[in-house]
Each structure stands twice: as structure tokens, then as C-alpha cells.
């Protein structure tokens, strides 16, 4: 099963002919992702790795029936591309671009939620269900098939965690990157709701950061009870206040959003707190014994 993407997922790649888009598409196909079409306006009719390229998402949908899309389109144009895919009926849009204008990010998220679709991101590394499919830029050799779900704001922190789990003989069901914020189309609590019902997931690792509200929102959701162990790691304990720590959403402002506060809130909600990926792995082992 896994969540959001699986073997049966039919993927579209927007921006498939660009430098990064084409390189990463090759890696996704090699990993086993079922990429059925690409879109680059003006390049319809071409093929790349044998995959047909269309001018618009509508044409791609008509010809190849994708149900999710990964978008390599740069920040200034990402909103338009995301809305195009959602308007064409896709259920999930992965937006990698980091430099998306705030108003565009808000617009695409509102557009998606009115149409009951999800935006993953912006500024996400994507999503991977190890051994099944990958819609992202993960170094997939660090991941392995297993029964731990991971949801993370940071791509690199999820790689780090998956690497340690993999080295300790634990694999992942699905690893979801929700993006660097401060606008999120899909949050930790959205992921928790899906992992809750996923028969392939035995425990959930929640990777948080300073700033924003999505860890608190996740804690609120956990407060109503959750049937699987949730292990939380919030990074940024050593981060000075008032500084953007690499992600636009990772900043302690007016004393709000510190790692310490988020850790306390998640702990009260029943999450088990870890301070490093290594600790996550030993807690998971103990919990699943």
C-alpha cells in the first residue's frame, strides 16, 4: 500500500526536458517509477527516454492518464504549472521549486484544496515509497523497503534518518517531504492521517524544524489518540532566534516556534522524542519489539 505513491502510480513530469528535470526523470525511471508522460510547452511531440512529451497537461492526461505529477518548473512559473495539473484532474502535485513567490504558494495551495487535491511543497524533495516508486530527488540508495513512515520538512534530514534506519535493518514504507515552508500544501498531520490507515506502516517518524505551525498542528491531531508509535525529532535546538536557518519557514520569531516549545508540545501529545536519527532508530526498534 504505502501512502500517496505506489507501484500503480502513473506519474507525469512537468518540465521534463530541462537539465534537472531530465536527469532526475532518468533516476526516477531507473528506480521503477511508472513515468507515463512529460510536459514542456512548445516541445509536444518529442519523446525522452521513450516517454511522450506533451504541450499541456490536458493533452498528457488524455493520452496517458497520469494521476500524479512532479513539477521541475522554476519558482516564478511553478504556480501556473501546478494549477494546470490540478485543473486537469491530477490528485497530487509535487512542487520542488524553492523560489516560489509567497502569494503564488498561497494561491496554488488554495486552488488545490478547493479541488480536493494535494500540493506537496513548495520547496520539497518529494516523496518516495522505497522499492515501489519515487517522485522526487532523493538519493534513493540510502532508503530501503520497510514499515516505518517518515514525514519531514527537510529533504536532507529525511535522507539522514532513512539512512540510519536502513543501516539498522529498518526500512521505510513512505517518506514524505512537505517542504521548507512557510506555506505548506500538505502537512505533518495530513501525513499522520494517511499513515494511520496504512497497513504497511507500523510506526511514524515525524521530522520537524523551528518556526511555523505544522508540528503544533500535528500534536493537536495526535491528542485525539493515534494507534501507532510516533517518534518525533525537531531540529534547530541550537539555532539562534530571529535567523532564517536555510528554509524560509525555519525561523524563531518573537520567541515563537522554538524547537524546545515544539518538542514539549509533541511530547504532551504522546510522541516519543528523539534528539538524533541514531536515537530514532533505537526507539523504533524498542517500540516495535
Amino acid at each position: 500500500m504505502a501512502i500517496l505513491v505506489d507501484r500503480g502510480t502513473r506519474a507525469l513530469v512537468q518540465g521534463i526536458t530541462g537539465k534537472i528535470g531530465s536527469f532526475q526523470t532518468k533516476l526516477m525511471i531507473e528506480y521503477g517509477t511508472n513515468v507515463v508522460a512529460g510536459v514542456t510547452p512548445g516541445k509536444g511531440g518529442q519523446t525522452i527516454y521513450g516517454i511522450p512529451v506533451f504541450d499541456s497537461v490536458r493533452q498528457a492526461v488524455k493520452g496517458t492518464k497520469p494521476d500524479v505529477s512532479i513539477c521541475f518548473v522554476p519558482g516564478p512559473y511553478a504556480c501556473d504549472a501546478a494549477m494546470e495539473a490540478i485543473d486537469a484532474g491530477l490528485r497530487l502535485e509535487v512542487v520542488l521549486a524553492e523560489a516560489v513567490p509567497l502569494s503564488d504558494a498561497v494561491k496554488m495551495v488554495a486552488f488545490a484544496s478547493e479541488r480536493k487535491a494535494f500540493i506537496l511543497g513548495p520547496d520539497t524533495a518529494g516523496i518516495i515509497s522505497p522499492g515501489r516508486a519515487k517522485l522526487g530527488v532523493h538519493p534513493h540508495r540510502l532508503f530501503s523497503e520497510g514499515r516505518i513512515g517518515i514525514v519531514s520538512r527537510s529533504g536532507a534530514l529525511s535522507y539522514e534518518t532513512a539512512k540510519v534506519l536502513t543501516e539498522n535493518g529498518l526500512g521505510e514504507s513512505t517518506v514524505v517531504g512537505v517542504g521548507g515552508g512557510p506555506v505548506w500544501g500538505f502537512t505533518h498531520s495530513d501525513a499522520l492521517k494517511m499513515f494511520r490507515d496504512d497497513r504497511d506502516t507500523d510506526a511514524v517518524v515525524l521530522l520537524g524544524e523551528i518556526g511555523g505551525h505544522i508540528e503544533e498542528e500535528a500534536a493537536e491531531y495526535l491528542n485525539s489518540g493515534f494507534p501507532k508509535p510516533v517518534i518525533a525529532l525537531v531540529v534547530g535546538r541550537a539555532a539562534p532566534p530571529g535567523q532564517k536557518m536555510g528554509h524560509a519557514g525555519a525561523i524563531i520569531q518573537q520567541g515563537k516556534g522554538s524547537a524546545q516549545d515544539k518538542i514539549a508540545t509533541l511530547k504532551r501529545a504522546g510522541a516519543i522524542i528523539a534528539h538524533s536519527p541514531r536515537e530514532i532508530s533505537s526507539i523504533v526498534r524498542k517500540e516495535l519489539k
Partner: protein
Amino acid sequence: MRLYEFQAKRIFQEYGIKIPNGRVAKSINEIAQVSNLIKRPLVLKAQVLAGGRGLAGGVIFVQQSDDVLKLGSQLMDRAIGTEKPAAVLVEEKLSVIKELYAGVAWDYQHNCAVLIGSSRGGVDIETVAQEHPEDVVKQIVDPFVGFSGYQARTMAAMIGLQSDQLIQYANALRSLWRIFQQHDAELVEANPLSILQSTDMVALDAKVVLDDKSLFRQSALLARIEQLPQQSSVGFEYRRSRAKELGIPTYIEMPDGNMAIIADGAGSGMLTLDLVMDLGGKTRVYCEMGGEITPDLMEKTMMVSLSLEGLRVLLINLIGGLNRMDEMAIGITNYLSKNPPKIPIVVRISGTKQEEGRKILAASRVEFFDDLNQAVEKAVKSTRGN
């Protein structure tokens, strides 16, 4: 990107919000000139981007008999925090009956813009929201509908305004919204928005923060508003701006440390800082390079982070998806071949093309780790060496 007050006021004026009669002056001579054009008493306001200007003495009043040149030159020389004023805004001092607040910001929890109003102006709105939440009114904006006139009038009525004042306040809110929307702002504030004896409503202070990721479509605005010559910042701010010019998105310094840390991801970077702290290590400087890093950026980031004095180790944590480890390794070895290291360099390198990257490092005899904890332990330990 935060604008100076005088720039923000220029935009306010374009959108029909009244501002005090005033001129910006970039030197003592200019203060002398413009202060003759404006009726006394005057207000001299240091143009700085830092907050807390009033408390730091950045706003002074000039009465009929005061020596404006003496007060002006004192103000020009006074640093607000670490920031020297880029200019002085000389304004007429107005007689105020009441101070209000009006602003627009993003509400990330509800994924929309929010208009904020209050009958308590002149103080930080966050403070008002904590101490007098009943005096703060909000209207959220549907991204596809925008902010409507009725919402503005509702807010004006909710903070207790009537008749002409209700209309003036509602108009000001609508103008702030248009500025926010048309110029891709992160924050727009009139605080205080003051009611004068003449019953006019005037923005005594103006704050506009533009969204950095939208600046590419605001070139017309940026060309239109008068810019100030680049201020020669010193210390941390100078080094940060230099790092930014070189393409390093995150450059942070902490006092009292002796470790330099470089990461290629925001979350993995913060984790590195945390693990260093847990082992008793002290970070002096931290650089995060973002995605799509070239060997050149890797090299420059090493140069920047190693330019500080008193460092005992450089720890580089690379775990790349989009970033290729072969390219990172080329950047590292390029730097080291030109600048033989004076302090230990600890590299952790994993992810896309890691074998190729490790080969390159090994050929140049750079020690590397696969495990982050081991790398952090090694780095912290080497700060305790002789």
C-alpha cells in the same frame, strides 16, 4: 526585503494614504536645506532597517529654538544597534488626537492574507494582541476574491470608528491591501495611523517588507523608489552580505564558538548544529548552501567560513539528493589545493554520486566519514586538541 520608512511612505502616498510633509536627507547639508522647507516643530527620523528605533534614540524632535544641524549630525552619527542611519527623514511634527494601527500580513495557518486593525496604535501589534486581544480585529482574504470594501468598513466599525473616520480608515485599509497585493509584500503596516486635530488620518510610520522571492516581478517599483547608496556595514552584517553576494543563502555567526560548519541542506544543517551542541562543541559560523550547488559555490563557502579568526575545526556535512557528491568533492579539493588548511577539516559525504565523491577526496588525502555522528564527534574532539 525591508524598505526604508521614506521609501514605504512614498508608496503609501502613491496609493492615497496621507503621510506627513517631509523630505529625506542624506547628509548634514541636506538636512540644513530640507529643514528650511518644512514648518517647525520637526521630527528627525533615522532611516534604518532594524526595529526598535524609537527606544534606541533614532527619532528626535526639533523645536522652534533648537539647533537642527547639531541634532541632525548627532542622529546621523548614532548607530541603531549595529546599523548607522543611511539617511534622515525630516518631517513636520503633527498634533495627534489618537493613534490607530492598520496592517496586512500572511496568515500561514489559514493560507491567506490577513488584514489587521486596532484602536491601539504606536506600539508593536504583537504586544497589543497579547495584552489586549479584544482590541485587535482581523479579516482574512480569499486569495481568489481579494479584500472587499465591506470587509474594510466592518473592521473600521469594529475598532469603534464612525462617520468620516470610518470611511478614512476603511480607505486606508484598502490602500494597504492594494500595496500588499500589487507589490508582493510580506508585510505592510501603518503604525501608527494617526487621527489629527484636523480630523485627517495620516500614517506617521510606514513599514513595507517585500517578498524576496517575488522581487523579479517588482523591478518597476524598485526602479521608481529612490534608493540609498549601499551602507558600509561592519562585522557580522558585512560578512553576511558578502556571503550573500557570493551565492551562499545562509550565513550565521554565533559568539564565543570555535567551529565552522557547512551543510548542504537546511534540516541536516540544523541537526549538525544540535549534535555539536549536545557534545559540548561551540559553533562560531554556520553556512548552508541550498540545493543545486556547484563546485565553485562549495569552494567559496569554504573560503568565507574559514576567513574568521580563532577557528579550530571546519566540519562539512553533505548529504545530497539534488547535490552531487562528486561536484562537492571537486569544490573541496579545489579549495584545499589553493589554500593548504591551517585547521583540521572534517568531511561527512553521503548521497548522490557518493562513491565518485569519496574517490576524489581520497586521492587528495582528505579524511571523510559516512556516519554523521562519527564526523561530529571527531570535529568536536579536535577543538579540544592542543
